[in-house]
C-alpha cells in the first residue's frame, strides 16, 4: 500500500491508539511508548498489509496487547498520596483527586490476568464495546467473550479485595 495510506492511518487512528493505551496504563509516557511501538511495527511491515485490513479492529487488538505487555514489564509502583495529575491528559475525570490506589492496583491486576481475560475486560469495561464487537476484534465467539469477562471480573474483584484488606 502507498505511503499516503500509512499517513492516513496515523492521522485517522493514531489518536485512538494513544487513547486506548492511556486508558489501560494511566501513564502518559508509557502510552506514548505503546503508540510508537504499535505504529512502528506496522510501518516496518507495511508492504504486507492489504487494503482490506480492518484497521480499527486490528489496532484495538495490538494496542491492548502491547499496553498489557508494558504493564507486565513495569515494576509495581508503590501507591502514593500525591495528587493525581497525568501530564498531557485532557478530560480526566480523576483530575484533582488523590492518586487512586485502586486504579493502580487495577492496572497491576490486569497485567497478571490471562491475556484473553485481560483483553476482554479492557475492551468491554474500559472501551465500552459490546460482546459482538469484542468477538470480532479478538477472533473468538461471543460466548468465549462472556466467559472470559466473568472470569476476569471475579479475579480482578478478588485481587482488588486482597489489596484493600
Amino acid at each position: 500500500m502507498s505511503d499516503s495510506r500509512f499517513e492516513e492511518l496515523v492521522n485517522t487512528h493514531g489518536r485512538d491508539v494513544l487513547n486506548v493505551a492511556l486508558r489501560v496504563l494511566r501513564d502518559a509516557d508509557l502510552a506514548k511508548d505503546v503508540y510508537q511501538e504499535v505504529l512502528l511495527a506496522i510501518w516496518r511491515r507495511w508492504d504486507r498489509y492489504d487494503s482490506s485490513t480492518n484497521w480499527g479492529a486490528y489496532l484495538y487488538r495490538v494496542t491492548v496487547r502491547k499496553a498489557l505487555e508494558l504493564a507486565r514489564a513495569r515494576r509495581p509502583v508503590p501507591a502514593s498520596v500525591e495528587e493525581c495529575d497525568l501530564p498531557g491528559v485532557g478530560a480526566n475525570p480523576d483530575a484533582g483527586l488523590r492518586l487512586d490506589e485502586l486504579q493502580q492496583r487495577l492496572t497491576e491486576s490486569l497485567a497478571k490476568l490471562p491475556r484473553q481475560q485481560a483483553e476482554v475486560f479492557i475492551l468491554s469495561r474500559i472501551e465500552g464495546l459490546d460482546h459482538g464487537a469484542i468477538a470480532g476484534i479478538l477472533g473468538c465467539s461471543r460466548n468465549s467473550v462472556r466467559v472470559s469477562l466473568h472470569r476476569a471480573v471475579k479475579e480482578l474483584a478478588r485481587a482488588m479485595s486482597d489489596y484493600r484488606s
Partner: protein
Amino acid sequence: MKNHESMKDRLVSLALGELSEREGCEVRAHVSGCDLCRAELVQIEQLLDCAARRKGLSADELLHESARDGLSAAAGKEKESDTTTRPSIRRVLTGSRTMTSSIVKLALAAAAVIAVAFFGLSTLPSANDGGYSLLAKACAAEEGLFVGTEIIHIQNEIIVQAGAGVGMGFVWLPMCSMKADGGLRLNQLKFATASESYVVTDHSWYDPATGHFSRILKTGDSVVFANSYDGQFVCDMNVASGGVVQVNRQAAAAAFKPPQSPAEYLGLAAGLATSLSQDDSMVQGVKESTLADGEPAHVYTVGMPDPDGRLQGYWLFKVRDEDSTIAEKEFVLQGRSQLLIRRVLTEPAQSPGVAWNLSELEGTVAQASQQVSITPDMVVQGVSVQHMVERATFETYVFSAKPAWIGEMEIIDCIDPASPGTRMFIMAARAEDGRHLVLVQSPTYNRLSGGFVKQGQVVYTSPNGFKVHGGGPQKWYSGILLQSAQYVVKDPPSEDRVGYILESPAGTLPALAINGPVTDEELHRLVDSLAPAAEYLKSHAGNGQQAQP
C-alpha cells in the same frame, strides 16, 4: 461453597446487567440477607466503577503531538532496510503533519494579528508604484477595478480544500465589515474541516458614484454574511432562531465615510497594501507561472519562515501579468493547500444583485451552515486594562510604570486562533528611537512556549518573581511579535531586535519583543514594573479604563 461460587457468577451477571428483571430481583433478595455476597457485590461494583472512570481519559493535543514527534524521531534512528525503497517514516509523517507542531500553532496564534496588518486595518497611505514590488502594483491595480461610472460586481469563490484545518477542526480567514461609526470590524470567518472540498461564494457590488456597496457570502443558497451601505444606513445581518435572517440597520454616523479605497474591504487584495507595500520582508519569493486560462502570471510566496527557515504556513498570490490584478490567492499549511480564493468574474452592473439595504434578505430562511461561521470582533483595538482582565482566561500583566523610552501603550484584544474560545492580548508601544515594544499574552503561548524556554537561558530573575528567558529562537518570535503589532509600531522588525519569554509567578509565559537592543538596566526596569493586571486595576481604581499609565 459450591453454591456460593454459583452465586458469585450471578453477582457478576447482576453487576454487568445481564440478568432479567426477575433474576435480578432474586439475586438482590439473596444479597440483602447475605453479608458475604453483599461484600462481594460491592467489590465487583467498585471494580466496574474503577474501570468505567477510565473511559473519560483521553490524550490532549500536546500529548498527541509529543507521541507523534516521538514516533518520527524513533523511526528516524532506524536504518532503512536495504530491501525497501520506501522513504523513512520521518519523512512520511513530517510531510503529512497538519497543525501538529508547536511552532505552527505559535505562528498561527501570532498570525492572527499579523492578519490585521496583512488583510485588515489599512491605516497607512495607499501603495504607489514607486519602489514597491509588483505585488504592490497588483494591489493598486485591484483598486482600479472600483473606479469609473458604473456599478461594479465582483464575484470570488473561496474553495475550502478537503481536510483543511485538520487538527483544529477549522481553517479561517480574517474578514472586514464596516460599522456605522465609520470604523472597521474585523471578523473571523471560520470554515469547518470536511472530508470533501466545498465552495463559499463572495459577491460584492460597489457604486463609485455614491460609495454604496453590498457584500454577501453564501454557501449554496444560504447567505452566511452580509454587509452594506445604502447612503443612510450601514446594514448587516444575523440569523435568528428558526434560521430566519434579520437585517440590522444602523444610521451612519456623521463621521462615517463610504469606503475611499474599496479594494481594502472588497475583492482579493483586501488590506494587502497595508503591509506588503511598506515592507516586502514577508515576500519570500516570486516566480513566473500561468493561470488556468493560460494567461501568464507571477506567483508571490508570502509568509514568515519558522526558526529553521522553513515556511510552515504561507500565502501564494497569483498576479495576472496583463493587468497586474490578483487572480488567485491560496493558503498553504505544511505543504497542503487549505484555502483557494479566486476571482470568478468582474463585470459592470446596472444595479446591485442585492439591494444596498439588504432588503430582500429580510425574513428569508437561511439553512444553518455547518460549514461556515463568523466570529465577530476577531480583533478589538485600544482596549482598557479592565477589558483585558474581564476577558482574559488567565492571569495577565501590565507595565505599572512605563519606561521613558517608549510611547503610548496600546492593548489589542484578539482571538487566539490556536486555542479556540480564548483571547490573546497584545500590548504594543511605538518608541521614538525605533525600539518599539510588544508584549503578547496568550493561552497558546502559555501552553507552547516552554520549548523556547528550554532552548534559551535565564538572563534575569526579577524581584517580582519573573524569570526572563533569552536566547533560543528569539530572533524568530520577536520578528513575529513585531510584525503582529504593525498596526501600532508601523516600522518593520529591525535586524537587532531582541525577544524574551517571561515566566510569570502565575506560570504564564508572556512573550516580549523589543525592536532594538536594550541594556540590562532597561530590561530589568521593564520586567520589574510588571504587575498583575487585576491588582493594577485595584490600585488604580477609577483609572482602569485607561490602557496604561
